[in-house]
């Protein structure tokens, strides 16, 4: 099957194309040099063409998301659409059902999305949901930061065992990368406690968050994993936490990257760029975080932009969720996972006239606008923590238009003037910057840039065409048109197949699930497994034989090879 996209105004940052009229040839799901004269032609008519969107951090599947659905029928009632001949019914806004997840991403021109956190023990559930999300390619990051084997091997300073455990854990969970959430805090939450900084000692395991982060970064690079360690910092959600975030980012200097990418990705930085000492003197320290990122080459961040209105916070950071539930008098879901991590789910409503929310709204935008290199700051809402992913077009419009920002600033709490820098920032991103923050940069951060996030020969034929002509629009003024175009792609092409036309779903192919198969010397695995078997015999409540995710749950796998003996280093 051949396809030719003609007359597109193409933005393809990886290949240095900035709005030039470029034809794109597609054959058998891949972008090729040329196609025959019998190829089907799509005339883009000068409209904006980009690679399919890539989201490196979104909570789309698994135990937390489903707890959110079960807790929030009031959310499910939003966004209800009956089935059609092609689509299954859609429900929900912050916690959509599996079908809506796939359709809504595709409608925005997104074709690849990574679930941000799964405990190994609950990974089967994650994959059950990923299997049912239509159209998009996907994968899931696996939690390692409070796992007992991680902490044991860190304490023993046995990097071979730690690397072998990470490799095995990725296999067991069919995971794509190493997620670390409030390292050590997940274990402490087992007794209702938390760590308060990088150097607190986790009782019974005698390790610190600092040691956990550094060791996992080292193991990650020993294994040459496609993605770096993906860190949700300690002290998230507490005023003054920017210092912990800066100290955590500095840890990356202790580790050398095994690939052309960051050593550390600090996620949803909106939630950990906070100054002040309490909610009264709460202020933005986004400038400090952006400044650090600007002056280093081994750390990337994503925004975690706040969106006004309803959101559902969900995270493996159990203690922060208990604090949220108490603060907001909100319903509280908690889901500790034995030997692995904690988790919590709490609904929230972000209000323009609440000073803390207004400041958080500004922080996300400051991070994106003060970070000079768009490859270092990805566009996310930490769906659905900052807000649902369907609001990405709103974020794009805000970043491209100072006029829109200034109009918005007039409607929010005055604290944004005194305690953030957003009113004075006049930078406006262009389509090239947006293409980087929503596809090329995300693909690079994830280690997928060979086939995702660009439109060069050999890339997957995942393409979005948006109904705006870049040479005839001033996004600074016509921001509403920009937002509307990104909400509803003129075309979304996934693997060479048209899946969205004029914002409507036209086909629902099955996407693939990315996971990383990292090899380590067998003797390292053998020694590591002695410890694992001991833990199953004594502490886990299920058997080792029933722990690992079976092939039946990953029916369309895309296996990425890595590892020590694979010679990736």
């Amino acid at each position, binding site marked *: 099957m051949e396809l030719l996209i003609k007359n597109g105004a193409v933005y393809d940052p990886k290949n240095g194309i900035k709005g030039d009229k470029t034809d794109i040839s597609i054959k058998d799901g891949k972008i090729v040099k040329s196609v025959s004269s019998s190829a089907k032609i799509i005339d883009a008519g000068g409209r904006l063409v980009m690679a399919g969107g890539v989201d490196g951090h979104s909570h789309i599947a698994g135990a937390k998301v489903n707890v959110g659905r079960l807790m929030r029928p009031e959310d499910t009632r939003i966004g209800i659409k009956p089935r059609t001949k092609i689509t299954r019914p859609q429900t929900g806004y912050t916690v959509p059902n599996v079908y809506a997840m796939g359709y809504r991403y595709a409608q925005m021109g997104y074709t690849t999305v990574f679930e941000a956190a799964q405990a190994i023990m609950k990974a089967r559930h994650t994959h059950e949901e990923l299997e049912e999300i239509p159209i998009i390619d996907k994968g899931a990051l696996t939690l390692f930061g409070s796992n007992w084997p991680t902490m044991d091997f860190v304490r023993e300073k046995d990097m071979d065992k730690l690397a072998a455990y990470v490799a095995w854990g990725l296999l067991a969970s069919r995971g794509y990368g190493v997620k670390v959430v409030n390292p050590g805090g997940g274990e402490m939450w087992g007794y209702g406690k938390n760590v308060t900084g990088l150097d607190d000692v986790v009782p019974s395991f005698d390790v610190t968050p600092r040691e956990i982060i550094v060791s996992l970064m080292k193991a990650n690079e020993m294994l040459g994993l496609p993605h770096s360690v993906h860190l949700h910092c300690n002290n998230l959600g507490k005023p003054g936490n920017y210092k912990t975030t800066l100290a955590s980012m500095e840890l990356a200097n202790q580790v050398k990257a095994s690939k052309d990418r960051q050593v550390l990705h600090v996620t949803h930085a909106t939630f950990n760029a906070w100054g002040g000492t309490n909610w009264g003197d709460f202020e933005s320290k986004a400038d400090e975080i952006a400044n650090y990122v600007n002056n280093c080459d081994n750390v990337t961040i994503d925004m975690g932009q706040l969106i006004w209105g309803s959101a559902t916070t969900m995270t493996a950071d159990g203690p922060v969720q208990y604090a949220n539930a108490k603060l907001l008098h909100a319903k509280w879901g*908690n889901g500790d996972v034995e030997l692995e991590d904690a988790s919590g789910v709490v609904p929230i409503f972000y209000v323009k006239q609440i000073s803390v929310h207004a400041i958080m709204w500004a922080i996300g935008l400051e991070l994106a606008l003060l970070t000079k290199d768009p490859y270092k700051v990805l566009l996310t809402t930490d769906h659905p923590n900052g807000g649902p992913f369907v609001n990405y077009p709103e974020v794009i419009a805000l970043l491209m238009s100072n006029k829109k920002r200034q109009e918005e600033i007039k409607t929010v709490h005055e604290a944004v003037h005194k305690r953030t820098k957003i009113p004075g920032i006049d930078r406006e991103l262009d389509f090239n910057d947006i293409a980087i923050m929503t596809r090329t940069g995300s693909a690079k951060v994830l280690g997928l840039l060979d086939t995702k996030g660009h439109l060069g020969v050999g890339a997957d034929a995942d393409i979005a065409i948006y109904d705006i002509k870049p040479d005839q629009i001033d996004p600074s003024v016509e921001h509403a048109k920009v937002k509307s175009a990104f909400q509803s792609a003129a075309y979304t092409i996934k693997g060479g197949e048209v899946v969205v036309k004029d914002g409507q779903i036209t086909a629902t192919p099955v996407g693939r699930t990315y996971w990383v198969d990292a090899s380590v010397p067998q003797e390292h695995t053998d020694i590591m497994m002695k410890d694992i078997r001991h833990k199953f015999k004594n502490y886990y409540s299920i058997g080792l034989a029933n722990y690992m995710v079976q092939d039946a749950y990953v029916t369309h796998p895309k296996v990425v090879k890595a590892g020590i003996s694979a010679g990736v280093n």
Partner: protein
Amino acid sequence: MTVITDALCPFCGCTCDDITVVVEDNKIMEVKNACKIGVAKIKGHHRIKAPMMRTDKKGEFKEVSYDEAIEAASKILAGSTRPLLYGWASALCEVHKKGILLAEELGAIIDNTATVCHAPSTLAVHEKGLPSATLGQVKNRADLVVFWGSNPVHAHPRHMGRYSVFAKGFFNEKGRRGRKVIVVDVRKTDTAAMADEYIQLQQGSDYLVISALRAILAGQAAVVPDVVGGVPKEQLVKLVDTLKAAKFGAVFFGMGLTQSISRYKNIDNAISLITELNAFTKYVITPMRGHYNVTGFGNVCAWETGYGTAVDFARGAPYYNPGETAANDVLLRKETDAAMIIAGDAGAHFPADSVRQLARIPVIQIDPYWNPTTEVANVVIPVAICGVEVEGTAYRMDGVSLRYRKMIEPTHPTDVEILEKITERVRKIRGD
């Protein structure tokens, strides 16, 4: 002879995964490690041999072919204006997915056995959330365990041994001796008999007692009467001190709480108590789910429709309003004009008026076993036993997903095969 180890038991929400099964000539000869009920479930009994039909419910069944039974079932469902698809708890998640798709096709109501069990807990979760944990967290850490309106000795026989009372863990090497066990119940059950403390309530007073505990915890003991629900105030004050003194407390509640007076409000109140206890020390609360995969249905239904149960597809999109859309709501209002009962036994567990309505309308039963639902059925389609003859997914009471193993080859078609055929046939009849 084949020995299958690490097999899973398809009886209760404990989903024990350490079962050993000895198989010879496609027969299960021996079951090790399971409880008595589990052994009986795995070995099987009184299977329905072949599909059966009858027009007159007072008449005798006549054996028919699978094709005839599927055709009859499809016609009943396709011709119904308000079909109900009920049961699901004793089937694997793969079956639930097919069931929800069929419900979409039909514009049916789909509901599961939680409706007469833990659905009130779901309503409470809508109100308050659920601070919970996996069972291994309890095994490794809990030094205080409360069974409230639940009786694991009989309903979840290995719960205490594997997870909650006798189990030894990382922070609790002593097992039973390292734990205080408290039972709150209206009856002195066998679980109560082995507890360190038994608190006997007057029937229907759970809500009052929980409220009193919350008041005492909040420092408002002065407002609590001298006796609450038959329990002296001093005992309640002492109980709060005991609860606060624990390092990790786990509360397991059963149908004594969900199906007694005040129903979901009991759970709502209990969850609030647990949330408030977390200001002092660590507490988690977990429903004692009955059927081995009732939790799985709630999960599949939630990720596919957004709601955990009682979903009405009459509008084409999922609609949920328990009290209006649950199985007994539509049966008692006599709206249901055809029902498919699968992997659950409405005949045995529904209120008499609901069963009377089932007796009036065409009923299709899909089940390996003859049970009271069979007595009100017109079309009976026997299937393979999920978790014994069919592999697939189920969710433990704490939401841990596990893959069931196939122990022997099935002698009947699977639920999935039957549902696929019915769905296909329904589509044709309705001309989609």
